[in-house]
């Protein structure tokens, strides 16, 4: 039998195999090399995994579907730089699982929202956006202030992230490696054995949601928002340094 497109079209098994092959090539060529090309992740100081409280806030961010309206990816264009700040680096989301880059912006990008507004503003705004921004179309999230934060499974959550490569430590050896990489202060925060203690301490360290007598979901979410995009000190790097990685 002559081999032509007809033989593929009338043989569904063969068509299935060839379709898979064609799609895999596209995927493999575009995605796989990112794992072994050296320049994918920029060499930059300051980026660390989230603390237990921030990580818990990040889980709430994902739970509430914030990513459906907010991206966390500033692109290297002049207009984005002027509005949001320095474009996002791959290094800045290297510990994000899953990453929150996104491309849908009903609301503004949040990649550098950390420190832009006060804790009080974030709390008021999440509770009812129209209290502070009358023209806002963002939904209200009043339950964040009402719900106590469930942190009973925080070590399991960190352990899950550790499985996919985030350097939370479980033993002395891993702890020592973190001290080397991030310094003592951060390494302490990444110790899974102290996760609950660290979470509670950070919740008390400042007034996240305006009420220090209770630990709410709002505390965790505000702590997460306030760290977004603040880890890299861009004044330390020459313009063009990051372009070397592309």
């Amino acid at each position, binding site marked *: 039998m002559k081999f032509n497109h007809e033989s593929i079209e009338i043989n569904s098994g063969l068509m299935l195999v060839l379709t898979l092959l064609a799609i895999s090539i596209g995927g493999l060529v575009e995605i796989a090399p990112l794992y072994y090309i050296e320049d994918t992740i920029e060499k930059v100081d300051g980026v660390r995994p989230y603390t237990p409280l921030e990580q818990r806030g990040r889980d709430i961010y994902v739970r509430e579907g914030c990513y459906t309206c907010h991206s966390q990816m500033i692109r290297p264009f002049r207009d984005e730089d002027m509005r949001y700040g320095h474009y996002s680096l791959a290094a800045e989301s290297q510990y994000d699982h899953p990453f929150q880059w996104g491309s849908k912006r009903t609301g503004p990008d949040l990649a550098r929202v950390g420190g832009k507004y006060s804790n009080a503003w974030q709390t008021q705004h999440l509770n009812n956006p129209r209290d502070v921004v009358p023209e806002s179309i963002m939904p209200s999230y009043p339950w964040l202030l009402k719900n106590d934060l469930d942190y009973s499974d925080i070590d399991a959550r960190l352990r899950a992230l550790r499985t996919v490569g985030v350097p939370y430590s479980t033993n002395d050896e891993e702890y020592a490696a973190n001290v080397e990489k991030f310094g003592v202060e951060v390494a302490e925060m990444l110790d899974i054995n102290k996760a609950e203690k660290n979470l509670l301490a950070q919740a008390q360290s400042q007034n996240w949601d305006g009420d220090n007598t209770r630990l709410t979901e709002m505390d965790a979410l505000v702590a997460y928002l306030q760290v977004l995009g603040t880890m890299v000190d861009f004044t330390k790097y020459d313009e*063009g340094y990051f372009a070397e990685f592309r």
Partner: protein
Amino acid sequence: MADQSQNKAVQTTGHAWDGDLQEFNNPLPTWWLWAFYASCVFTVVYWILYPAWPIGDTYTKGIATTTFQNSKGEEVTMGWNTRAEFIKDMQSGTEAMKQAEYLKKVSAASYEEIVNDPDMTAFTQSIAKVLFADNCAACHGVGGQPALVGLYPNLRDDAWLWGGKLSQIQHAIVAGRNGYMPAFGEVLSNEKIDQVANYVMTLSGLDADAAKASAGKAIFQGDEGGCYYCHTSAGTGMYSQGAANLTDAVWTVANVPGAETNKDKIAVISKVIKDGIQRKMPAWSERLSETEIKLLTVYVHGLGGGQ
């Protein structure tokens, strides 16, 4: 459309379903085929010009280049990439150059020169309006008037907590502000707080219970309350502490005008005395450039209440 079954050049796939259902086997339209060949050629050209194929731990960078200046002013040429293109656009793009011309002029000028030069004023108004909307409006409201009384200072009125001179406004933007008033809930009884609230009412010329107000005055002006430390004995406030002027009937925290009866007004004032205030304006020096802060300073000063 012509009935293609009459066209002898068109073949069928040779199958017949249900007796007479046949499938044509038309060749691809010529225009489509040539567009396909053209896109194949384009792909190869693209591979040659731009970053494309992974090889081991690196990739082909392409022969297209981008040239820009690094922070030392040296010219750097590297393989074309979006980050280098971005730096180049910021340094020499048409729009960036237009803006840079004005930014340079503004950054060299004094505040007086900016305000007195119609060209620079127009530029300041248009660019600072956008900067304000992106960075300040979330709290202070579009145009400088916040959504609710009490949460954030109104920038359109004459009342300033930290001063309304250009230098004071600039300092607020650069370093931020920490508004703090201690909570008196644990120091003073509810009765005494009520008395102080009555006295504060009289400072702004509102009606209050005279007996309570006079008792409140003693607490306010004495060491029991010590309110005069920051608000001064006249109640006119102190810019260095961010302490509000209590005599101007402008209420920056308690929504006194919004409360209907005198009793309600006293209640909102009492709440402030009881709970204190902790307000924070973030510092902007790391987020905004010196020139951007200068433009915002002129803009905020011009919103209505600049001193």
